[in-house]
Structures are given as C-alpha cells and as structure tokens.
C-alpha cells in the first residue's frame, strides 16, 4: 500500500511540475542558465503598414522566435529589429 502511495505522489509531482523539497508553498524562481544567443534575422516587410491604426504589428513585422543565424561575440544577441535576444534553459 505504501508503494502505491509513493507512486501516486511521484505522478502528482510530475504532473504539477512541483519542485521537490520546496516546502514553503512558494514557487521558487526559475533557475536559468544562459546559452550562446542567436540573432533573429528576418526582413522587414512593411513597417509603415504596422503603424496604421488597428493593425497588429506582429502581422507585418518579423516574428522574433525563430533563430536563423548563430553568431558569437558581444553582439551575438543583436537582431535586425534592434532587439537583443538570448537563449536560456529553465531548470
């Protein structure tokens, strides 16, 4: 019976994504590790169109979540749209 209890607890932990041993009921901050970043380089389709009232700029401006080029060095995160991106692992 105790084995079943252990199994149930283990499955519950997996399903809820809880941190083992957190204990105080709070969600601990994400433990992150930064990796080499890759700039997103995509063409601007129509920045003027993005400024039209009622237009969602994401429709005409480049998406930002698809890394295209992997570079190294201090400007590795700089992207064509002027943003700075970095990849990290949430443990």
């Amino acid at each position, binding site marked *: 019976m105790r084995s*079943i209890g252990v199994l149930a607890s283990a499955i519950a932990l997996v399903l809820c994504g809880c941190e083992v041993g957190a204990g105080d009921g709070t969600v601990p901050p994400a433990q992150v*590790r930064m990796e080499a970043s890759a700039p997103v380089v995509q063409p*601007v389709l129509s920045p003027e169109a993005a400024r039209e009232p009622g237009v969602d700029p994401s429709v005409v401006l480049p998406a930002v*979540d698809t890394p295209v080029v992997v570079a190294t060095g201090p*400007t590795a995160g700089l992207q064509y749209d002027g*943003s*700075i991106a970095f990849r*990290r692992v949430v443990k």
Partner: protein
Amino acid sequence: MKTLAMTGLALLILGSAARATADEWVTVSAPIFPQVLVLYEHEGANFPATIDEEAAVAHAAALNFQSLLVECQADYPGITLLGPEDPPLTPEQLTANFDLVAQCSYEKHTAKPYWIPQLVDDVDICGTELGSEWRLPTEEDIATFTDEDFAFLQETLTTVAGGDWWGGFYFSLRIFVRASDGSLVMGDLTPGAAPRIQPLPSTVNGTATSHLEGGIVLRCLHVASAE
C-alpha cells in the same frame, strides 16, 4: 508493488529531465521612444480625457526601431536594409544600423526617453507598436534574469554604441517595469544594480500626466519557447 513504485520513480525522473531542457528565447526590444514634441502638446492640463485618446496620443508619438530603420536610411546611408531575398546582415552591419538609428532618432525625430508615465501605465504600447506577443516587462520577469543576463545586455549595448552622444539615450538600461502590485516603476538592468526595482522619479511637474526626464526607456519583452 515494487514494479509500480519503480514505474512511478521513472516517471518522476523523466518529468524532471523534461523540465530541465525547457529552453526559451528571451528578447528585449530596442527602445520605443516618443517624439517629445507630440507629447508636449498632450501633457498636464492637456492630457487626454479617455483611454482611447491616450492610446491615440501614444501611437502618434511612438517610434519603433524598424520604422526608424527605414525612415532614417535616406539620411544615414550607413544603414543597411534587408530585403526578402537578401542574406542575413553581418554583425558589423547590425551594429552600424543600431548606432545610426539611435543617432537618427534624436537628430531627425527629437526622440528622447521622455514618456508620460500615465500613458505607459494606461496604454499597451508594446502590444500596439511591436505586436501582441510583446509586453511591458514585469518585476517577476526581471527577478528571473541572472547576473549573466544583465552582463550580456550591457555588453551588447556597450559594444554597439558608436560614441555618438545624442544617441546615448538609446543604450539606456533603465526601463519601465510593471511591479508586482500593478504599479509602474523603474527597473535597472545594469549589472549589480541595487535596488533593481524602485519607484519612478518625479516628472517635470510632479504629476504622472507630465513627461519624465529620467532617462528611462520603454523596452518591451518577448519570451518564447525554443523547443
């Protein structure tokens, strides 16, 4: 029973492993600067009376990087535009673009980081100007940044800065942040900054409906799964 327990343990280990590889892309936008001459007409006693009017003023004043890139290219030929069939820009071209947009934003558009706090507080400028997947960074977002993240951001901006004084605002690491209590505050992304989050300084006349000359820039955040 032992088999069931072993299965449970295996599930636990697999679940932990899966969470350990949850890569994500964190993207911090270039500043969205206001054209201050637009803001000056709508501050204090002339501040918009409705949210819709506030949104209209914010949109009229806002300048995003990509629009500036295109608009500035004629006067700043060092800017390289990327066409649909062009190969990716080199790091040198990206760096030059950033520095020249910073210079142009001030010289051609009188853009300074002088947002009226009430506009930033009331209007979703990030979503309106950059797209619905962008948002104002929160205090919780900043709390997840590591020392490496702060150093990376500073190093990138330091490297791309060409030394032009007028464009200096564009490289600021002091940003607007949504605090845990819902208020608008200032976040400092400088490595080692303490405190990291603090109240906004006073505006030019002490009210939230006048512009703020604190060198605080509006940068937006985008977080996406890298899976």
